[in-house]
């Protein structure tokens, strides 16, 4: 069978899944399951239904392939393309279909990739993958499970789905100590990279009228504020985070990255007097067509939600087109050009200045993990390519990451201990990148790029 057929079969099943997931969500009266991403909520309201995300991941993978094609030796790249390209795209279409099984069960949401892979073999719930041969099914199943698992878990979980006679085939792809082949490793990177770029809010903000807002409640008088640095009824201020607010109003003309102007901020500083409305919030009465929906999503000890993750924006560029972009904006990039001659990709991360603590946690866990697993070439792990990445952390034109860092450090919130922990772990990561991973964290200061020296900043505080 031709490889193109694999993709079209998976695509058909993905469309079927998209229909089913919308029906299921209606059935459970739950348009905001917490483990669903904000981008999905917005997509679910449009005509594209849930395929918005699936289309996007496929497009993102195609874009990434263009970038990595420049990095990977030609012979090796062609070899990979023959063996893994169509399987990767096919897996991208169906990697989430297992969500149908976990929609009412948030605790097991992380298992959805496993269910997606098992649909390939058991044709349940109307899905049909009969005409794909087993070898390709194994490849697609591996990639589906990989998208939110380590290679070790991927191997163990795939084994439980497969018939014993295929174990040998599986061992060809993942060898000793759960180490995948170079080609499989690259495909795995592509699929989790594509998926990450989605829930980090890539391009998502362009569809949003305003930024996400986190609300705080005064413990004493129960007034809701949009900032926790205000004085309230009692002298001893005790604010508790109560919700994430977002205006679900699609407007493609407004650039989401634009900071709110001062006038807007003033409006937000006013206390939300209509607290009753907030407390009685019921998702059933607030369809996505309604302009404002306030969703209470935070539990005890929960640092941030998927909504907060969307507060940061992540994009991957190849170095040359990024240089061109900098030249256009008259930014001086001499420092990188002088010291480093081997950088090949750029990860541009834009953090939300209004919610620095949430942005810090996202950076510390998701983004650092993402860089380590997907963008960096790990010489010990894979020989396929060598990549040195620039991590370009952007807040806005006037505020640099270093100066913000102090702000975060002195930030008095309920999560003081957690913030301290996050900063320690971030410093470790930066140090490790410096010595090993070849990630170069840089920031913008006075229209000039500057290398971030976290150790120095930490000492200054």
């Amino acid at each position: 069978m031709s490889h193109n057929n694999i993709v079209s079969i998976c695509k058909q099943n993905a469309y079927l899944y998209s229909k089913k997931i919308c029906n299921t969500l209606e059935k459970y009266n739950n348009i905001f399951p917490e483990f669903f991403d904000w981008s999905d909520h917005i997509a679910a309201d449009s005509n594209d239904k849930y395929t918005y995300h699936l289309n996007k991941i496929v497009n993102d993978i195609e874009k990434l392939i263009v970038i990595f094609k420049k990095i990977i030796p030609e012979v090796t790249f062609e070899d990979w393309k023959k063996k893994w390209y169509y399987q990767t795209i096919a897996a991208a279409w169906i990697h989430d279909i297992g969500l149908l099984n976990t929609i009412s069960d948030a605790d097991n949401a992380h298992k959805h990739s496993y269910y997606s892979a098992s649909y390939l073999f058991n044709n349940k719930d109307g899905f049909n993958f009969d005409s794909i041969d087993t070898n390709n099914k194994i490849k697609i199943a591996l990639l589906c499970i990989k998208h939110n698992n380590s290679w070790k878990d991927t191997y163990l979980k795939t084994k439980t789905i497969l018939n014993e006679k295929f174990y040998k085939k599986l061992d060809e792809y993942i060898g000793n100590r759960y180490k995948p082949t170079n080609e499989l490793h690259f495909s795995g990177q592509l699929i989790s990279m594509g998926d990450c770029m989605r829930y980090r809010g890539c391009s998502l903000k362009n569809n949003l009228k305003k930024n996400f807002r986190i609300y705080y409640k005064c413990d004493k008088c129960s007034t809701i504020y949009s900032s926790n640095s205000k004085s309230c009824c009692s002298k001893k201020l005790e604010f508790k985070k109560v919700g994430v607010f977002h205006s679900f109003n699609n407007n493609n003309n407004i650039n989401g990255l634009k900071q709110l102007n001062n006038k807007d901020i003033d409006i937000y500083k006013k206390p939300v007097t209509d607290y009753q409305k907030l407390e009685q919030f019921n998702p059933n009465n607030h369809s996505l067509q309604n302009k404002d929906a306030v969703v209470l999503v935070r539990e005890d000890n929960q640092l941030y939600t998927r909504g907060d993750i969307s507060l940061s924006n992540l994009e991957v560029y190849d170095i040359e087109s990024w240089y061109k972009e900098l030249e256009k904006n008259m930014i001086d990039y001499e420092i990188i050009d002088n010291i480093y001659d081997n950088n090949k990709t750029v990860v541009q991360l834009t953090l939300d200045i209004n919610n620095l603590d949430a942005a810090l946690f996202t950076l510390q866990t998701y983004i650092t993990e993402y860089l380590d697993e997907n963008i960096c070439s790990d010489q010990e792990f894979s020989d396929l390519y060598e990549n040195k990445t620039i991590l370009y952390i952007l807040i806005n034109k006037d505020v640099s990451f270093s100066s913000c860092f102090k702000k975060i450090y002195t930030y008095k919130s309920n999560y003081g201990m957690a913030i301290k922990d996050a900063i320690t772990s971030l410093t470790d990561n930066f140090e490790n990148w410096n010595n090993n991973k070849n990630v170069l964290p840089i920031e913008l200061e006075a229209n000039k790029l500057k290398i971030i020296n976290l150790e120095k900043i930490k000492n200054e505080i």
Partner: protein
Amino acid sequence: MKYELSKTKIYFRTYFVYNEEFKKNFFINLCKWLINELNPEIKELNLNGQRFFKNITSPKINEISDNDINRIDKITPVIENFSFPFIFRKDCLEIRISARDKNFDQFIESNKAADIIINRFVDENIKSKTLTDYWKKYEINLRGAFDNPLLRDTVRAINYLPYGEYEVEGNINANNKKNTISKKKITPPEKVQDLIKQLNFNENTDTEISFLNYNIKIKQNYNLLIFRNINKNQIGLSLYSDQINWFHDLLTLLYNNKLFEPPLIKINNYKTLPLF
């Protein structure tokens, strides 16, 4: 060329496999082991997880709820005034030893102490629970600046070697010019051979050598050595192994050849791992 050992850390990792049902008991027992048995100085633990953070003290271990346990991926012990280099992740225990403020002997001594904890952890938490699948990995990543162009030349020399004699794979030119040569059977250049001899690799066992973008990678079982091109003036050296002895032999060899700079400062009252 000198390597900056004093600016680096050595990572001791133990990977292991456990199943979901086992997870709950494992985490509770681990917390108890950390607080009660590993070291009396450990009074608190930081628990991190999926968008989750909690700080617990000894008496509260039993109060950790099922929901919390499902979300924990990482446990870090906290000791007052000492940053304890010990992180427990979902599938791995990691200890980091910094070479800063130690002389070489003290550094090796700390490494041995870390190895002892790893072994204790394996014996008391993994082997006894019939979790058989585990392995160790030690890792150090060094950076060095050139004063002697020898090694750089060795690496550059690959460009000028007669075609077809070397196993070269990848973009030969770093400036994105594609000049790819497919795999050919080879002998490594003389200087690399010298280097390998010096670095104590046993030639009789299977040794794989590969080159990629100015990188030299030498592999023997689970011992791995990589020279990597970092930037215009620096070459990195990474060592990976599952044997502490091989690791220490190599570090000692580099030390004896005066490859570490600045020289490690001898500190009389350095604080060692507060373990025993």
